[in-house]
């Protein structure tokens, strides 16, 4: 390290690791130079998760399930196949997508207490809170308290099911279709469906402004 020192210190600078961003850059450079992971591969993966893969994909699946009863049946029976048919890519062999349906009697919520398993192919990168210790530790033991923190109150007579994604299964919640959306088409319905509703910590809300009368 060639920089000047004018401060007191009693530690050996060789013990201080370089900043994380520089260490990541170093690994990237070495892997690229050896032809193990090319710059192109890195760019392609980053671009996919920044621009192509995100909750809009899951929302499209949910909206179709709301308007197409046959698709809904297939989605609940075999989520992997139905999602593939819908055009969802990247569901590798062995990864099973299981779609769990919210009803007036059952509310579903998804977690991975051991790490952060998440349906990346339909929702993109998980939000920070999903990967955090507070969520992972509490939602299995106090799901109603966690849901309340997200502003989601669940009646006492509704059963809360917590799905802990500990195997190679990935869960997606099929939220209840909000009232007053009969006139909306598939694209307009999809626009209502947020990521948090597909994880199960929130509900899908009706549109803020009712659509104009036809």
């Amino acid at each position, binding site marked *: 390290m060639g920089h000047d020192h004018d401060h007191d210190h009693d530690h050996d600078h060789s013990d201080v690791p*370089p900043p*994380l*961003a520089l*260490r*990541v*850059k*170093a*690994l*990237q*450079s*070495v*892997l690229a*130079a*050896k032809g*193990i*992971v090319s710059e192109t591969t*890195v760019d392609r*993966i*980053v671009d996919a*998760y*920044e621009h192509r893969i*995100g909750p809009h994909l899951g929302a499209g699946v949910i909206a179709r399930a709301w308007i197409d009863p046959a698709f809904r049946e297939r989605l609940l029976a075999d989520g992997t196949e139905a999602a593939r048919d819908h055009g969802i890519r990247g569901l590798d*062999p*062995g990864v099973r997508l299981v779609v769990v349906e919210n009803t007036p009697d059952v509310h579903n919520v998804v*977690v991975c*207490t*051991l790490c*952060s398993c998440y349906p990346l192919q339909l929702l993109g*990168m998980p*939000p*920070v*809170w999903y*990967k*955090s*210790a*507070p*969520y*992972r*530790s*509490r939602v*299995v*033991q*106090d*799901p*109603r308290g966690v849901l309340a*923190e*997200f502003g989601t109150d669940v009646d006492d007579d*509704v*059963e*809360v*099911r*917590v*799905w*802990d994604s*500990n*195997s*190679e*299964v990935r869960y997606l919640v099929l939220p209840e279709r909000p009232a007053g959306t009969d006139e909306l088409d598939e694209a307009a319905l999809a626009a209502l469906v*947020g990521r*948090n509703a597909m994880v199960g910590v929130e509900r899908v809300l009706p549109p803020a402004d009712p659509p104009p009368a036809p």
Partner: protein
Amino acid sequence: MNRIHDLGGMHGFGPIHAEPERSEPPFHEPWEATACALMLGTLRLGRWSLDRFRHTIERQAPLDYLRRSYFEKWFEAVCELAVAEGLVTEDELRTGVADTPVRPRDERWTPGFSTDRAPRWAAGDRVRAVVRNPAGHTRQPRYVRGRVGTVVRVAGAEPLPEAAAEDRCEVGHVYLVRFEAAELWGADATGRDAVYLELWDDHLEAA
């Protein structure tokens, strides 16, 4: 292992700080995106299994595990595995300059998803999650040990995580099991709630 990653049911981590959904980016820093891509890019080489990667994270010191951000944990694990597999050296990680060849490896980690063995359990069976304290990796969370649940269905067949973490593929059936909240949490459970888990043959015994 009874490690800090096994968080289900623990107290004391405080409230959940959720960013507004519509404005949270997939990555908060450019290095996070790169670290993510390097994890996915190296995983597909077949030099290590996903469970070996998970196990590498789980073995991080508890204080590091809690202090490090998510992608930092990923990055440290990728570095450790890349060095262990002879893809890079510690010197190269410091300098960013490649000056050693990659250690060749013939066999590739390939997960299997079928087994000839018949499932041990069927829908409706009452099963107990075995009580154990394995020294290595497992995907049986601590909170379910010794608890009784009901098999919902045979969910599929997957590599046993305990073996997969050592890059050995031993496929076993996985069962979706429903545990009543009161069975897991006693009087602190609310409502008629339940937790669903998928467990392997080795994780279950007759109740």
